[in-house]
């Protein structure tokens, strides 16, 4: 059952991801954004299969929820009909895709060569262990991320404010 679910989620994530970045049927950015949301949900399914339940929830809440809504909002705010007419230059696109493929192959070759135990131990503890780690050693990165969010907020407010004069 778990094996089957893995294949389903993996296939959905890859196909939706592909359609998000290179949709042969529609060049509408809205469609891309929706496919990306699907891919993100599928990844969260993979997280759950890896017993990272809390992360699965966070992925859906923050990524598929908040971030994608932001994307959709901006896409609809900007009038992007003009964008759809443009065609990507074929040669450049082909070269870039070949490069991406090569990099992916190199990375997966490395990842698969350095194997681990075939039967992974279960991830125990769940949210309780996470919470304990979060408020001991990991407190520092967590707080820095909080500061980072403040900085990003200040920046976003400044950048999107209309000029007074």
């Amino acid at each position, binding site marked *: 059952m778990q094996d089957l679910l893995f294949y389903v989620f993996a296939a959905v994530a890859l196909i939706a991801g592909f359609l998000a970045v290179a949709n042969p049927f529609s060049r509408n950015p809205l469609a891309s954004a929706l496919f990306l949301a699907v891919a993100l949900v599928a990844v969260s399914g993979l997280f759950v299969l890896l017993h990272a339940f809390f992360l699965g929830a966070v992925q859906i809440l923050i990524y598929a929820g908040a971030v994608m809504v932001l994307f959709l909002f901006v896409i609809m705010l900007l009038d992007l009909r003009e964008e759809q007419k443009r065609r990507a230059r074929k040669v*450049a696109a082909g*070269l*870039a895709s070949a*490069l*991406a493929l*090569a*990099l992916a192959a*190199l*990375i997966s*070759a*490395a990842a698969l060569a350095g194997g681990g135990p075939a039967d992974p131990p279960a991830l125990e503890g769940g949210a309780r262990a996470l919470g304990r780690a979060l408020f001991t050693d990991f407190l520092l990165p967590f707080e820095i991320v909080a500061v980072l969010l403040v900085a990003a907020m200040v920046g976003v407010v400044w950048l999107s404010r209309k000029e007074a004069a």
Partner: protein
Amino acid sequence: MQTLFPWLILLLPLAAAALISLFTRPHRDLSARLSIGAIVAGFWLTLLLFALPGAAAQAYETRIPWLAAGGLQIDFGLRIDRLSLLMALVVTAVGGAIHIYSYEYMRGERRFSTYFACLSLFTFAMLGVVFAPNFVQMFFFWELVGVSSYLLIGFWFERPAAADAGLKAFLVNRVGDLGFLLGILLVWSRLGSVHFGELERRLAENPAALGAMATVAGLLIFCGALGKSAQFPLHIWLPDAMEGPTPVSALIHAATMVAAGVYMLARVFFLLAATPHWPAALHFLEGLDALEIIRIIGLFTALMAGLIALQQDDIKRVLAYSTLSQLGYMVMAIGLGQPGPAMFHLATHAGFKALLFLGAGAIILALHHEQDIWRMGGLRRAMPLTFWTFLIATLALCAVPPLGGFYSKESILAHAWHQDKLVFALAWCGSVLTALYMFRLVLVVFGGSPRRPRDAQPHEPSHIATWPMLFLAGLTVLAGGADVEGFLAGGAQGTASLASRLAGPLAHAPFVMLAGLAATGLGFAMAWGLYRGAYRDPLPARWSTLASALRQRLLLDAWYARWIGGSFEALACLASGVDRWIIAGAAVRGVHGSVELTGRLLRLAQTGKVSTYAFALGCGVAALLYWLIR
């Protein structure tokens, strides 16, 4: 006293420069007095040091710790020995005369005070090179000499030619200096010290200490002298540096900057003379040693510059090429393994070449900044004092006894005769050339009838300018009596009687002396035949190809501009052309160097497009990963 005086000699010019630029800039007279006072005081202090009992007898050092971190320990100190004292005397005596002369020459200049501040800064830097006890300190002052000469040569920066000449001098020197720096690093990493005395001791203990890098290190250090002393192929900056005020030319070309290279070679002679050894990669050069290469370069420079000087029409350029030629002799003497004669020639040359430049300055001033020798003529009557001092200097340069130049040059030629007959023969040809171009200059400028506009009434400069000229003329006459070589060799002074020294060349090497005199006579006869009463140069009519080649400086400059794209000669030429290219946007004008072109090609990669950048980044990462996994 022995420690205080050298510090004073070194620091007085610095104090003068600082005082002038900080406080006395509006007071022109006071500024000049400060600057002149500093160097004259330095001159007297140097003389006192000579006179102090035992001061000159043995080398000593005074130092304060400057840099100490980890294994690195460098002191800031002064090394006082016969070599540095002699050089300091030359710098302060000739430099002092030029300072005083400047007071008259630059009278009408708007930035009079600034000029003297630069002059003092330059003197400070030069004295720093002279007294430096280690490589690092020497390199510091070496660069400071470069910077302050840049300020002086480009002093009239409103003229584009002056600005470009200053930049060219600076940049060409940097090329040589980088070799010098690499040489210092090599020596340091091999011998573990930068201190001259310590290096000499370590090399004496273990002559093979430099290992396979011995010859390379010597040649890299020679690169520094190549730039500063304007030897082929880095000689191209010196003639252009004539764009500076004439006293600056005198200072830079006679006594100080160009002499620094020869002085440095004499200082580190023990490194050059180390056992020759090449690294495996340069095995095909086995058999050549550093001194041999230095000798060849010096000789070539001497001949080349002498030839080019034959066909120059600008009075200062003739003198510039003559300087190049004489520097070639000095470097050749070093290459013959004889730093003593090289320093002797440096000292005498400093005096008479400065005198020639001051005379040229007086003429230029009298003719309202006319520098073309074919528009002078007949100045013998109008400016008798200038004529006689110029003639004395010319005779000294052509090695006529009993003037100073005779003894120093004969000494070099004699050593050449003993070691290598071919070198001697070529150097002898150089002597003929020297006499030819110098007497050409004298005959055209002072002889014949005036060829200038009628209304011009040239007259002697005021006595503030003539006193330094007389002083230098006196030095030139008397220098023959000085036993510089014996002094440098460490012998007690006054062992040989004056008379026996004066007749020395005749006693030691009569053939060489007679040959040298014959060369001078031959050159003089040729000049007399060709140029007496001439109104224009007869050579272009007779041998047009040769003359035009010489006029275009053997095409060397053009060749540089064309082919050695990476050299700064090309880049300096390019600067304006490239600017025009960018402004015009299209047409490619002028020559471009390969560096410029590569820069331009690389810029094509910088398209301004994020996708290109991201693609290149991805390619880089992919290459990195492939290298790791393969």
